[in-house]
């Protein structure tokens, strides 16, 4: 089904809301690849990994995030934007120029690809926050960027921020992933980490902003699954101020990672153990200190535990983390070849990309696959201090979840 501009009056949050009454049912495919040495790989690798998993989607959504792709501009925030029309572009650019020094503004390089129709206007910007504004508002650059993203997504009709991190970018839209990848000319980019997604929505028309990955700053998340515990996960997050306005499992997973990693400062390994908790029978067999830790972790974060079938890949500038649900109800295969770690929904993707992997394995339920790029910062987002309301608002563009902030729009 083509992306039908006429059906909607605007491009932003209404579209999300349009999807939100329904969870995104159905299967999906995903892949993630990371060279821990920091060596860059062409985006073609990610495209190949998704092309062999074509059957896992239905052409209503495909997307990629690449890390290390803008080495010359790595100190600037890279904004990938989607616009419904030129009016939206003008309004968003006005907001951007008031908030940032725009070092580069250019249309996203694309090529015509059969099957990709009705694309929105796609632009990218490389931005530096005005230093005096940061000082005036006593904000870190990251806080500031999130506030701007929040304001654009919630206030500028027809504009949507697809990604906003440094030295990374999200490329996503309506189509099969290999079509989207070629449309965005990903083979011309080189990154140390790529995550990719193939979407199979069964009940929504699909729109460009709704494709995975979900991003905020340099985080990206792709997700295959259906969280049967969605109801309590969302209520748990609400207690901390997050607003789950989209009704999607991916949103819930994104906030849970934000809560556990950034706000509760849990190491990634333990955050994964909280979200895909080991069985009590396993915990009971652990040595005393570990048992005490895991018992507390499970009892405290029980309402946040993601229960139901899922496989998830979280990408960021320091690498990636892939995680399966606690009894492995969705596929996830992993492989290592030298310094390269890869995960995918299907082994075929791994065999397509890695000619002779050293080791291919099926990660155990709840056992995260973690790839860390040497020399990269870890953990991540040290400079982001904003509360959950702002995070929810930035991710979803839903205004009611936060107070407006004083960033020009």
């Amino acid at each position, binding site marked *: 089904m083509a992306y039908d501009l006429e059906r909607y009056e605007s491009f932003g949050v209404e579209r999300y809301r349009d999807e939100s009454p329904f969870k995104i049912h159905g299967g999906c495919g995903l892949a993630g690849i990371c060279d821990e040495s920091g060596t860059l790989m062409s985006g073609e690798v990610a495209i190949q990994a998704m092309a062999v998993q074509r059957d896992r989607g239905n052409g209503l959504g495909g997307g990629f995030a690449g890390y290390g792709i803008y080495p010359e501009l790595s100190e600037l925030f890279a904004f990938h934007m989607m616009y419904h029309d030129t009016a939206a572009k003008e309004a968003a650019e006005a907001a951007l120029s008031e908030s940032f020094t725009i070092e580069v503004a250019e249309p996203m390089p694309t090529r015509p690809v059969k099957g990709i129709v009705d694309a929105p206007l796609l632009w990218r910007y490389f931005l530096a926050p005005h230093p005096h504004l940061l000082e005036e508002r006593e904000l870190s650059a990251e806080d500031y960027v999130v506030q701007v993203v929040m304001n654009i997504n919630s206030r500028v009709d027809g504009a949507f921020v697809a990604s906003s991190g440094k030295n990374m970018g999200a490329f996503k839209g309506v189509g099969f992933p290999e079509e989207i990848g070629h449309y965005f000319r990903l083979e011309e980019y080189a990154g140390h980490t790529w995550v990719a997604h193939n979407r199979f929505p069964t009940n929504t028309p699909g729109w460009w902003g709704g494709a995975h990955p979900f991003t905020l700053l340099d985080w990206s998340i792709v997700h295959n699954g259906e969280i049967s515990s969605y*109801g309590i996960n969302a209520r748990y997050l609400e207690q901390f101020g997050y607003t789950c306005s989209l009704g999607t499992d991916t949103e819930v997973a994104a906030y849970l990672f934000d809560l556990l990693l950034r706000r509760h400062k849990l190491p990634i390994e*333990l955050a994964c153990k909280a979200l895909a908790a080991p069985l009590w029978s396993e915990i009971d067999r652990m040595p005393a200190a570990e048992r005490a*830790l895991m018992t507390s972790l499970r009892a405290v974060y029980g309402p946040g535990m993601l229960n139901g079938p899922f496989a998830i890949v979280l990408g960021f500038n320091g690498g990636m983390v892939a995680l399966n649900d606690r009894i492995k109800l969705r596929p996830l295969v992993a492989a290592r070849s030298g310094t390269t770690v890869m995960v995918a929904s299907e082994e075929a993707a791994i065999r397509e990309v890695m000619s002779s992997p050293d080791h291919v394995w099926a990660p155990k339920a709840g056992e995260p696959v973690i790839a860390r790029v040497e020399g990269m910062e870890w953990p991540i987002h040290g400079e982001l201090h904003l509360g959950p309301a702002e995070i929810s608002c930035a991710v979803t563009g839903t205004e009611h979840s936060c107070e407006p902030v004083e960033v020009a729009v």
Partner: protein
Amino acid sequence: MQQTFVQPEFRVKIDYDKCHKCGRCVQQCGWGVYDFAERPIPHDEKCRACHRCVTFCPARCITIEKNTLAFRENDNWSVGLLKAVWKQAETGGVLLTSMGNPKPYERIFDHLVLDACQVTNPSIDPLREPMELRTYLGRKPDSVQVASDGAGGFTLAEGAGMANNIELATPIIFSPMSYGSVSLNVHRSLAMAAERLGILMNTGEGGLHEDLYPYQDHIILQVASGRFGLNPEVLGRAAALEIKIGQGAKPGIGGHLPGEKIDREVSATRMIPQGTDAISPAPHHDIYSIEDLRQLIYAIKEASGYKPVGVKIAAVHNVAAIASGIVRAGADYVYLDGFRGGTGAAPAVIRDHIGIPIEIAIAAVDQRLRDEGIRNQASIVAAGSIRSSADAAKAIALGADVVAIGTATLLALGCHLCQSCHTGSCSWGITTQKPELTRRIDPEWGAERLTNLVHAWSHELQEILGALGVNAVESLRGSRERLRAIGLDEQTCKILGVKPAGM
């Protein structure tokens, strides 16, 4: 004596053709229904329909029928109301009754249905996959803080992590019933079953008999307004302490155990002289505000070596604000008792007309604690009345951590809900202290029946979780998205946080 206007409620019929004339009915009946003159002669007016004689009659020749006297139709004045007026005109007294509110108020549980998985997310087979019911009762920290263990791993940071929680193998515990209102054999049965099940029994306000000391790790000891049977030594024994403010069947009402029931054992356990009335005042005379409650909570923690302390309240109109105050006062759990909750004795007017349904109370309290960001600071125990594993699952989905069952446990021990516990003559040997009756319950037999009951309900909870596609009870707890309402009005749905079916 004045002729009573109140006609018997039941008719006891014996098929004398079948009767063995064995006299067992005479011996079984705690209410003295039968005389024996060559054959059993029933006195209908004494019958409570407890079915003890029916159950044990070897000839199965006894039937109990409703005394269906015709009155002229009147929707306004029910026969029950007429009888109440006649009784009060005869006696001038408050009408006493027992067990839970039987009136035809809407039963919200019966208007809630659960979800199940189809296609897009799979259901899970509880016979093949682990299905976890373990629950921790008590205060949880907001987050878990960790430190490096020096070997590339992690350990709990100093003083972080969950402390003073009680591990329950299943989210079902036994509700408080005091020794005095029930027999020691009932207490023994409950304590033995609690130990076998990995759950908790609750002494109620009558203290802890020393026969129960071996089970102390599975016992909640109640501190009620009468302060019966308490001293530092006993406080140190229980797994948790519970301050009883109120009870669903009689919110705002104290208790009165008549001196005849205070035999040597009860007197020793309650620590009061034999033969004196045991009176629980309506309020605690040292709690007239939430600050006072806080002091008592901490005094008990101090005296007991920092055991978890819960507070039991009746579900009343303002329950959410009260519960929030209780959590802020330092309670480790809040025990909510709905207006259908049972009692050993209560004025009928109170039992039948005061309080709110437990479903509403759970929903309101859970939401309030979440709104205030303190839901993790205390567990919610819900009771009054949980009649089945389905009620338990719905209570948990509305937001309860644990459900407590009382009436169901007594049913397991033989109770037939005749609502006559206050007479002290329970034919089933449950709510009585008469030795010839209490010995009808063998604690070993009782413990087995209670264990069976909770096992059965736990298996059913596992079936429900499997259908919902989750394999741990924490994924159901508070997950109101998995409930839908049928035939509830919009406002009630809103309070419950539940969508109508079809949405």
